[in-house]
């Protein structure tokens, strides 16, 4: 599903955000990326989502060579991915339902099918009863779950999450990671960045550790290519 070969990313003339990173995540797998802030976790996820282009190296995601993907082909590629952010990035000018429906609107789904899928996604994260409220009125944990519902509503083949538990207490964090595990069980490949090593290790999934833009070999490492 994801394959990085000797990928380097440099922003301007600054030092390398990622140096020579190679990794592989198989279809249907679930893996974690850990590391301190500034280690390059977000950059790695942004490269995989096609939000950044690598300075050097090859990235292949879901059959697309991202370093060769034309600008016109990028929207199509992004529709096969779900992204979860630490800060949720919800739109406060519309209710929860419309936030979750956004990817389906982009995919031009018809109303009845859209309603069905949005409600299914909200049900999955336990917020079906909140579909009409403004996300501003929700708690941090609920907002994060709305963000997750939005990321999975169009049933992407790949789910990428950048510190999805960053602002949550341990109990809520476990709940969120359990949700990802559930999605993974129904076939969604998932790659989750988190600095919370203890939490990650309890999930019993492959872990890649990033330090200063480099993959560090660890006991529970995933599958470096």
């Amino acid at each position: 599903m994801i394959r990085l070969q000797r990928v380097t990313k440099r922003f301007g003339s600054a030092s390398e955000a990622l140096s020579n990173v190679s990794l592989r995540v198989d279809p249907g797998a679930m893996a974690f990326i850990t590391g301190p802030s500034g280690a390059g976790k977000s950059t790695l996820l942004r490269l995989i989502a096609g939000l950044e282009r690598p300075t050097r190296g090859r990235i292949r995601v879901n059959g697309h060579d991202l370093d060769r993907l034309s600008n016109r082909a990028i929207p199509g590629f992004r529709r096969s991915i779900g992204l979860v952010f630490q800060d949720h990035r919800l739109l406060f000018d519309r209710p929860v339902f419309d936030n979750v429906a956004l990817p389906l609107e982009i995919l031009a789904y018809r109303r009845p099918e859209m309603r069905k899928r949005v409600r299914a996604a909200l049900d999955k994260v336990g917020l079906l009863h909140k579909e009409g409220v403004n996300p501003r009125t929700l708690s941090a944990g609920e907002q994060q779950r709305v963000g997750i519902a939005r990321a999975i509503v169009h049933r992407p083949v790949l789910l990428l999450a950048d510190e999805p538990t960053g602002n949550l207490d341990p109990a809520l964090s476990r709940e969120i990671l359990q949700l990802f595990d559930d999605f993974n069980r129904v076939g969604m490949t998932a790659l989750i960045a988190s600095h919370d090593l203890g939490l990650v290790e309890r999930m019993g999934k492959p872990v890649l550790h990033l330090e200063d833009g480099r993959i560090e070999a660890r006991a529970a490492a995933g599958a470096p290519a």
Partner: protein
Amino acid sequence: MKPGRRLQDTVPAWLEAHRDAARRSLQRRLQAPVLSLISIAVLGFILALPAYLWVLLDNARALSAHVDHDPRIALYLDGVEAATVADLERHLETDARVERWIWIDADEALARYREGLADPGLLDWLDENPLPDVVDVIPATADPETVAALREALAATVPGATVVSDDDWVRQLNSLHQLGLRILSVVGALLGLGALLILALATASELRERREEIAISRISGATHRFLRRPSLYGGVMTGLGGGIFAGILLLIGIGLSRAPLEQAAAAFDLEFGLSLPGATHLLALLLAGLLLGWLGARLGSGHALRDAP
């Protein structure tokens, strides 16, 4: 084809997407009514000015039909034989370009001249009447080319006569009208360009307000076309509103300037009525607004989305 999608859903889904974009754009405008109305007003003013000038010009051209100074062709029949005069009369009767004609007898002309003099006795010094018979021809149209052609035809019928036409003023009026149209098109083009830039700026700033939504939509795979769709609908709405407002302004403007213009015309002994623009012209104004709105939104969104992350 996306999973769970059927072919027969594609067109209705596309229509629904457009309806949603239009609805969202309308909602955005209703949420900030003052700003939306300012945009509409600016466009309305910009459209109304050249439209008003055009109506004045158009009416000024119609003025030539009302002026008591139709182009005339005078034939001075000095020493022309009676047979030729008969030919001329036949020609004048049959030529459709002739509205009417007046025969001014030389003696009659002299008598009239005598009446105008302070001392009629002066003319008794003359041995004979120096005035020729004159035929005053009033053409059916003021069109300079037709008048010129008629003049040549008449000159050919009466080879000995001196033919004088006073259609110069028609040519002058016509060239003034042409000049007016040229100035109007330059003013219109400049104002249109200004309106386009204002609308483009308004669209760009609206997209800046939507930047979080745009960023999230981009990440979810939205295309440029999808992202600019609400802006284009917004542009069309502003354009239509501007067109309607311009139409109202135009009607008010004409209503207000009618009486003073007619008074001024009367002072010059002119019969002049300012006529209201017809439905076609108001529709053209609406279409101009619509086109400017759409183009401005297209320009602004193209620029803003290219620069967006």
